[in-house]
C-alpha cells in the first residue's frame, strides 16, 4: 500500500498550476461571463499546446497516454481557477473514448458531453462534437446533427444547451458508457476539490486582513470554526477522490462505488465551504464585484452535475445494503 503520487505526476500538476495561475486569474473568469460563448479565450489553446487537453489520448493520437489517475491532479487545478471550459467533458470524458482523438487532443475540435440522463449540456453551443448516450451505448453526435436550445446558468460562465439529434455514431458499448460517466463524475469531484481549496484560500487571506473590533476577524473563534470545518470536509473528501481515480485507472471491480463516495463527499465539501466562506466574508462576499461568487457558483453547479451527493449516496447504498 502506497498512497502517494509520483514525482512526474506532481511536476506535471505544478506546471499546469503555474500556467493556470498566470493565464486564468479571476479577471478571465469574469470576462467569460460577458463572452458570447462563456469561455476562457487563449487559455484553452495554451492548455492544448501544453498537451493537457489530449493527455488522456494514446500517444499515436497525439496524446500522452495518461490514465484517469494521471489526470486527476490536473483536473483539480482546473477547478481551483474555475476554468470556464468544458474541461472534464472534453479531456477526461471524451478524449479517452473517441476512436480518433487527434484533433480533440490538439484542441482543434471542442468536445462536450452529456451522460447519466443529464438534462442539458455545458458549452454545447460552441462544441464541434457531443459525446452522449443512446439506447444504453456511448455515441458521438456531430455538430451538424444537433438541435440546440440555449440556456443560461446561475454560473454566468457556463453556457448550457438542451439538445436533440437524429443521427449519432456508436463509439462504445454499455461498459464504455458507464466508464465514461464515472470519469465525468470523478473529474467533476476533482474540480470540486480544487474549488473548495480556492474558496478556502481566498477566505483565509481575507479574514487575516479584515479588522473589526480592532482585530482581524480571523482571530474570532466563530470564524475559525467555520473555516476549520471547511478544511476538515476538504481533507476527508480528497483522499476518496484520489482513491477513486486509482480504482478507475486500474479497472477495479468496485470503481463505480468508489467514484460515488468521492463525488458525494466532494459535492458536500464544496457546498459547505461555499456557505461558510460566504458567511466569513460578510457583506463583502455578497458583493458582485468581489470574486468569491465566481467560485461559489461554479461549486453549486458542479455539486449538482454528474449526479449530486444524494444520487451518489443512493448508488453506494445499492452496493452495500
Amino acid at each position: 500500500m502506497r498512497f502517494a503520487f509520483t514525482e512526474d505526476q506532481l511536476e506535471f500538476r505544478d506546471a499546469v498550476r503555474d500556467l493556470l495561475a498566470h493565464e486564468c486569474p479571476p479577471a478571465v473568469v469574469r470576462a467569460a461571463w460577458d463572452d458570447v460563448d462563456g469561455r476562457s479565450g487563449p487559455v484553452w489553446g495554451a492548455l492544448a499546446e501544453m498537451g493537457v487537453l489530449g493527455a488522456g489520448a494514446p500517444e499515436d493520437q497525439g496524446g500522452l497516454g495518461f490514465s484517469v489517475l494521471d489526470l486527476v491532479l490536473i483536473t483539480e487545478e482546473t477547478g481551483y481557477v474555475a476554468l470556464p471550459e468544458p474541461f472534464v467533458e472534453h479531456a477526461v470524458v471524451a478524449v479517452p473514448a473517441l476512436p480518433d482523438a487527434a484533433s480533440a487532443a490538439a484542441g482543434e475540435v471542442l468536445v462536450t458531453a452529456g451522460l447519466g440522463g443529464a438534462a442539458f449540456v455545458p458549452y454545447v453551443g460552441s462544441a464541434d462534437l457531443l459525446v452522449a448516450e443512446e439506447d444504453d451505448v456511448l455515441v458521438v453526435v456531430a455538430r451538424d446533427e444537433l438541435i440546440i436550445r440555449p440556456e443560461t446558468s446561475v454560473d454566468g460562465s457556463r453556457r448550457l444547451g438542451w439538445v436533440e439529434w437524429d443521427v449519432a455514431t456508436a463509439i462504445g458499448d454499455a461498459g464504455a458508457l458507464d466508464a465514461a460517466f464515472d470519469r465525468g463524475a470523478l473529474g467533476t469531484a476533482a474540480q470540486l476539490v480544487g474549488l473548495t481549496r480556492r474558496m478556502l484560500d481566498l477566505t483565509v487571506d481575507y479574514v487575516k486582513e479584515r479588522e473589526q473590533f480592532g482585530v482581524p476577524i480571523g482571530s474570532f473563534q466563530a470564524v475559525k470554526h467555520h473555516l476549520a470545518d471547511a478544511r476538515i470536509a476538504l481533507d476527508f473528501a480528497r483522499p476518496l477522490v484520489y482513491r477513486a481515480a486509482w480504482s478507475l485507472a486500474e479497472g477495479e471491480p468496485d470503481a463505480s462505488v468508489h467514484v460515488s463516495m468521492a463525488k458525494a463527499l466532494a459535492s458536500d465539501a464544496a457546498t459547505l465551504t461555499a456557505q461558510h466562506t460566504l458567511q466569513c466574508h460578510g457583506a463583502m462576499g455578497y458583493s458582485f464585484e468581489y470574486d468569491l461568487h465566481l467560485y461559489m457558483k461554479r461549486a453549486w453547479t458542479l455539486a449538482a452535475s454528474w449526479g449530486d451527493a444524494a444520487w451518489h449516496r443512493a448508488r453506494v447504498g445499492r452496493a452495500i445494503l
Partner: protein
Amino acid sequence: MDLRFTEQEGAFRAECRSWLEANVPRGLPSGDTREGFGLHLEWERMLFDARFAVVSWPEQYGGRGASPMEWLIFEEEYYRAGGPQRVTQNGIFLLAPTVFDFGTEAQKDHILPRMARGDDLWAQGWSEPGAGSDLAGIQSKAARDEAAGGWRLSGQKTWTTRGAFCTHLFGLFRSDPEAERHRGLTYFLVPLDAPGVTVRGFGRLDGDEGFAEVFLDDVFVADDAVLGEVHQGWGVAMATTSVERGLTLRSPGRFMAAADRLLDLYRDTDGVDATDPTLRDQVVRAWIDAEAYRWQTFLTVTRMTDGDNVGSESSMTKIFWSELDVRIHEAALGILGPAAEVGDNPWMKGYQFALSGPIYAGTNEIQRNVIAERVLGLPRR
C-alpha cells in the same frame, strides 16, 4: 501509487485474522468496571503472549517492529473480529510514544516491557479541577527534595480514565511556580501505591466507574521518575500527543467495524424504511465517512513514512473520528427507535461512550482552534 496491500501486508493480515478469530473473547463486561477490568486484563495478557499487544514496537520491548501500515491492518482485523476496548490503551498509545522519544535507556527497558505485558497499568494524569481545556493552568506542584534526590508531588488530578484500576500515573506537575505557565511544568511517572497517594473512583455518564480523582499529598518520587528534562514537561507532552490523539488512539478499523455493524442492524430491522426513509441515507453517509477516514489515514501514513510532519493536522483526524462515532450511533438509535432505551442495549451504551469523544483528548472546540491557527494560519487572540 499502489493501493493494493503488499504480499507481506497480506500475510500479516491473514495471521492477525486467524489468531483473532480463534481467540477474541465474547461478551466481556465493560472494562470500565472493576470486574470487567480484570477480565480485560486477562485478554490483554493473551494478546501479549501472542505478540499482538504492541505490534508496532521493536521486538526487544515485546513488539514485532510492524510498519505503521501493518499496525493499521492489525487494528482493522482486531475490530473486525469484535475485539474489546483496550484497557491498556492510555499507556500504550499515549505514554509509550513519549517514552520512546524522551525516555532514557533505563526508563525504556524498565517501563515498556512491563507496560506491554500488562504488569504496569498506566492512567493519564493531566486534567485537574481547574485545568481541563486550559491544560497549562495545572496547579499540582512538584517541589525539589535535594537531600532525598527526588521530588515531592502535591495536588489533585481528576477525570482520570480507569484511574481506580491502574497501577501508575503519568502527568504534568508545576515544578517552577515562577516561570511562565507553559515553561514551569515537568512530566512525572508516579506509582499509585506510593505513600501519600489517594485514588477515588467515580461514575461516568454511563454509570461505570471509569473516572477517578487522584489526590497527591507530599508524594516522594526519585529523579528517575522524570520523563524528559525538568521544567520541559509541556514540550515533552506536546511533542508526541498530536499524532497519538489523532490517529493512534482511535484508528479507522474501529469505525469501519462499527459502520459494518450499523449496516447489519439496518438490514436486520424489519420495516425500517417505512418508519423513516432518511435513515437509509444516514446509514450510507456513516459508512462512506468511515471509508473516508480509512483512506485519509492511508494517505497520511504514506506521507509520514516519506518523512512528512503531519503535526497539527491530526487535530482534524480527532474531530472527524469523534463526530463520526456520534453519527454512527445516532443512526443506530434512529433504527432502533423506542427499543434503544430497553435493557442494556449495546448501541445505547456505545452512544453514551461516543458522546465522550468530542470531549476527551482535547475538546473539539480546542481542536478547531488548533486547525484554524496552525493549519490555516489564522491569528491567535
